[in-house]
């Protein structure tokens, strides 16, 4: 990424408002650690720019605050996450546009190796089955498939743990039946 893309280049950081140079360097290192945590491997070459974008968002947030307080780990993590994922979305969109403009906008099935295409097909089938399912079961199963435990899923959904667990159980049974009807079996 360069300045041509409309993004800031990774230049030496001026001291943040209300902070000395040493504190600024420490803060920048904290941001970098968070960006590295969220950055997928294929985006690693953009880390410096994403750190800079996070820095600018943090400065904007601090200006709205009193500007002197430690921004806190949660705010830094949130800003680093959003900057990283925004950049991920932007580059993937650009890649797609480039493919379309070059006339290579083939179907995903043609571009991908057969195993990847098959995985994508199964993923789409799971998505279709989830959409067709009773909504409460669908929400609970989606969180389960994402890796949430029952307690965490219950907290997010605003339901009790027992109800959530039952919904996951029944929803998974629905999902297996739906996939089997599509010819996909475990």
């Amino acid at each position: 990424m360069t300045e041509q893309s409309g993004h800031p280049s990774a230049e030496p950081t001026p001291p943040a408002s209300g902070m000395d140079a040493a504190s600024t360097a420490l803060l920048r290192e904290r941001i970098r650690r968070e960006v590295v945590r969220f950055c997928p491997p294929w985006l690693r070459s953009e880390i410096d720019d994403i750190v800079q974008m996070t820095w600018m968002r943090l400065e904007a947030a601090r200006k709205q605050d009193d500007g002197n307080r430690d921004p806190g780990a949660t705010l830094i993590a949130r800003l680093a996450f959003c900057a990283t994922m925004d950049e991920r979305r932007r580059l993937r969109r650009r890649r797609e546009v480039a493919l379309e403009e070059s006339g290579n906008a083939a179907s995903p099935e043609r571009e991908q190796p057969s195993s990847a295409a098959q995985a994508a097909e199964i993923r789409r089938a799971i998505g279709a089955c989830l959409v067709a399912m009773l909504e409460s079961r669908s929400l609970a199963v989606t969180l389960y498939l994402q890796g949430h435990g029952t307690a965490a899923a219950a907290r997010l959904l605003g339901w009790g743990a027992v109800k959530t667990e039952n919904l996951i159980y029944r929803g998974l049974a629905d999902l297996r039946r739906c996939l089997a009807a599509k010819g996909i079996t475990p």
Partner: protein
Amino acid sequence: MKLDEAFRAGEEDVPPDAAACPSTERVWDAARGELAAEPIHEVIKHLRTCSSCAAEWRAAMEPEAREAEAVLIAPWRRWAPLAAAAVLVVGVGLVVVLRQPDRVSDGTAMRTATGREIEPLVAEDQALPRERFLLRWAPVEEDARYTVKVDLRDLTRVTVARDLHEPEFLVPAEALKDVPSGATLVWRVEATLVDGSCVVSKAFLVRLE
């Protein structure tokens, strides 16, 4: 085919309708439970058919939300195997304890799959004063971040602290106000390393003076 693995595949797929994707801020807030239930439900509905946003959600999840994967079984079939397993575990535990008469409970750290350990710097069963209930452990690596969970022995949660940068946690006296003097507390540490991996300690015991 494992359903969860199949669901998590294809994270670099282009969303079928990118314009419908929630903002990254909204994904973060929903995954962290910082929205009301209804907006969270809306984001989850989107994840069903968008593997890209589903991948973002997983990146935003708090480490403790990822609980050990359990094989779900019918609720009505749950209790008999659990009861049998409990009897078996107690029996095996007794055998193990009885066969190690010289073993000293010295807070030996747990060795994890990553080879990292979390070693407590508070002696096992040490009594700490209510006003300065300081839990300390040896740093796992320089930039690790820590979560500490403190429970009673019946697993009632006393307090939890997240995103700690230092390998210590001073339990607020307020959190201990309902804990009787002499009670034993159980504390665990989870370290999130720079590479995103997680090291979980074993349960350590400490007493309230």
